């Protein structure tokens, strides 16, 4: 889109280009009224917003820029059998609201249904240069396409429904430059966990993070989505990856993507979104991935994380009293002793799924690990594909047979055990190797102990019944 600001060649970052193109107005140097191109809606954070519209007699300004699905509450054994009456009400309420306000819905009976952050990209709704919001903090996922995407609360959901805009204070920019070479078996999940382990759970507060460098350039779209998905765990509302050939190849041909006849024109415009030479960021972090091992969290936030060959830390090593207390509390909750080798920790549950790691590539990697092996006795292992289409694709490749014959349960799509709003929960005191994004207290069930890992590491843990370095199990990696 030609700039309305004349021909001055002020170098800009990707973020600045998207932001500037979406400011409707900015009265008196206050927050900007930002236009929203795509509003994704799910059942949990929307009912009060629709109710607000009804109470004030307002309508949805752009139902054509809005898209809804059900994911958080959906049972994954039989999605149509919602036994919890309050969950069932939330699901039917969304369907009724979509009908009343004319919003397209991928409902339980639609082949498009799935986790909102999986289906947006899958359907080609998520495109470079767009502003994307959803009442869900993991909306940052869509930044993998070079879209400015962030989570909002329910009042803002109502605001976007009514006005297609949001008042936003311009965030600062942070360049996260990923350098070096990933060792085989070290995934995007390990990279983002490694970054958060080093920089903490709030280093990104107030920033939009743009990932740069050879590591991210070499990543697939699935990997980039994993990376951007978890920037919120470092406090950043949005992550970004500049669009490139990998992006365009993923987007091309998807239902809501530009038609083939005009696709190349779009590609030219998308390329121009990339950060200009000489543009500067408010902050720069360099992170070298070369020495990174597969990561495992040991505590109750994603920064409480260590390499698989490490040990559980000792609270007495922390100088800061508040931090020491937090670590003590985490170890108590997790039932772990300082100094325990990570590989001595036994697990009872394995969850492969969530908006972080439930895409086809995640399932392929996990299947490769479990192929011709068996889930350890006493371990309950679940694979929950991120969407119906992911499930369909995995079944076409025979991955479901690989999982099932190893002893995994093969489920229908949804958020499932990531936040355990549906019946997939981890009992108190039991331990779960999970490919999700949050290991907060009670996240997977009251008293449940969550360890965040990559799909490959989760699969390896299922086989071994404890954490192991997946690289020892993967034949394709043993030669390197």
């Amino acid at each position, binding site marked *: *889109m*030609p700039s309305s600001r004349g021909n001055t060649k002020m170098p800009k970052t990707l973020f600045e280009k998207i932001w500037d*193109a979406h400011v409707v*107005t900015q009265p008196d140097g*206050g*927050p900007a*009224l930002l*236009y929203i191109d795509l509003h994704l809606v799910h059942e*949990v*954070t929307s*009912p*009060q917003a629709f*109710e607000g519209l009804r109470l004030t007699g*307002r309508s949805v*300004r752009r139902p054509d820029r809005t898209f809804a699905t059900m994911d*958080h*509450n959906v049972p994954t054994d039989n999605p149509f059998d919602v036994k*919890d009456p*309050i*969950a069932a009400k*939330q699901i039917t*309420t969304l369907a009724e609201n979509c009908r009343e306000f004319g919003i397209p819905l991928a409902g339980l009976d639609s082949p498009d249904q799935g986790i909102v952050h999986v289906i947006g990209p899958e359907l080609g709704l998520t495109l470079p240069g*767009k502003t994307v919001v959803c*009442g*869900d*903090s993991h909306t940052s996922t869509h930044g993998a396409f070079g879209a400015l995407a962030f989570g*909002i*609360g*329910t*009042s*803002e959901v*109502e605001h976007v429904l*009514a*006005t*297609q*805009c949001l*008042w936003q*204070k311009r965030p600062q920019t942070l360049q996260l430059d990923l350098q070096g070479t990933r060792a085989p078996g070290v995934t995007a999940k390990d990279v983002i966990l490694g970054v958060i382990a080093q920089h903490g*759970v*709030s280093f990104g*507060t*107030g920033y939009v993070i743009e990932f740069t460098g050879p590591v991210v350039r070499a990543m697939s779209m699935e990997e980039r989505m994993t990376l951007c998905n978890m920037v919120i765990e470092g*406090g950043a*509302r949005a992550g970004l990856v500049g669009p490139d050939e990998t992006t365009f190849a993923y987007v091309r041909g998807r239902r809501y993507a*530009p038609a083939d006849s*005009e696709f190349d*024109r*779009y590609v030219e415009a*998308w390329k121009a979104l990339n950060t200009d030479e000489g543009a500067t960021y408010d902050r720069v972090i360099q992170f070298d991935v070369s020495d990174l091992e597969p990561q495992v969290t040991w505590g109750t*936030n994603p920064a409480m994380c260590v390499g698989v060959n490490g040990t559980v830390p000792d609270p007495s090593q922390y100088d800061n009293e*508040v931090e020491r207390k*937090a670590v003590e509390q985490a170890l108590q909750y997790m039932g772990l002793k300082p100094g325990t080798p990570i590989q001595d920790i036994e697990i009872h549950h394995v969850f492969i799924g969530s908006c972080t790691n439930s895409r086809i590539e995640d399932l392929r990697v996990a299947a490769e690990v479990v192929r011709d092996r068996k889930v350890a006795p006493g371990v309950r292992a679940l694979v929950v594909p991120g969407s119906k289409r992911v499930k369909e694709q995995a079944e076409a490749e025979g991955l479901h047979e690989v999982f099932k014959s190893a002893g995994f349960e093969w489920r229908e799509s949804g958020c499932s055990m990531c*936040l*355990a*709003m549906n019946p997939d929960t981890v009992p108190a005191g039991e331990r779960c190797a999970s490919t999700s994004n*949050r290991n907060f*207290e*009670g*996240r997977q069930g*009251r008293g449940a102990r969550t360890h965040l890992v990559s799909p490959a590491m989760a699969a390896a843990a299922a086989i071994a019944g404890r954490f192991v370095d997946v690289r020892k199990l993967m034949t394709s990696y043993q030669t390197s």
Partner: protein
Amino acid sequence: MEPLVRHRGKVARLNRVNVDTDQIIPKQFLKRVERSGFGQFLFYDWRFRPDGSINPEFELNQPQYSGASILVAGANFGCGSSREHAPWALLDYGFRIIIAPSFADIFYNNCFKNGILPIVLSQAEVDDLMEKALAPGYELEVDVERQTVTDGHGWVSTFSVDEFRRNMLLKGLDEIGLTLQYEAAIAEYERKRESLQPVL
């Protein structure tokens, strides 16, 4: 939304860092379709034991903090999920003001939409208030217009909130109503963008 101009209230302390919204309101309580009634579930897993009885060890269950309307907490309060049920629960429980050295972005934003004021003070000031809030009945007065916090016994601090948000709080404004006044600008923006293809 109820305007917030000046507020005086009892102070409760929650001396923990990185309190996430999953703790503020656990997910099993997100299934309601109303905005009200979430206070009973606030900090549920900390306030109540697994058998449903009150956990006397949890800070907010100490009798001296009953009726508190100002919460002093550690850094990065409200991190994690975007659930607005977190401010709904805090408000319904009785909190109008939350003081911390820092807040997570989405939570911070959500507070203003519900007439809760999140106040950022320095770590040293928060440490100070944590000490003071040990005394039963310790109160603070917050003046939103002047952006001051004082205990009436010599402890005074100032904070800053951007003017836009402060104005919304002071007047209890309906933000959507405000935005709809820009309808012409929004329509013009849409017209311009949609005439330019490819739209970015």
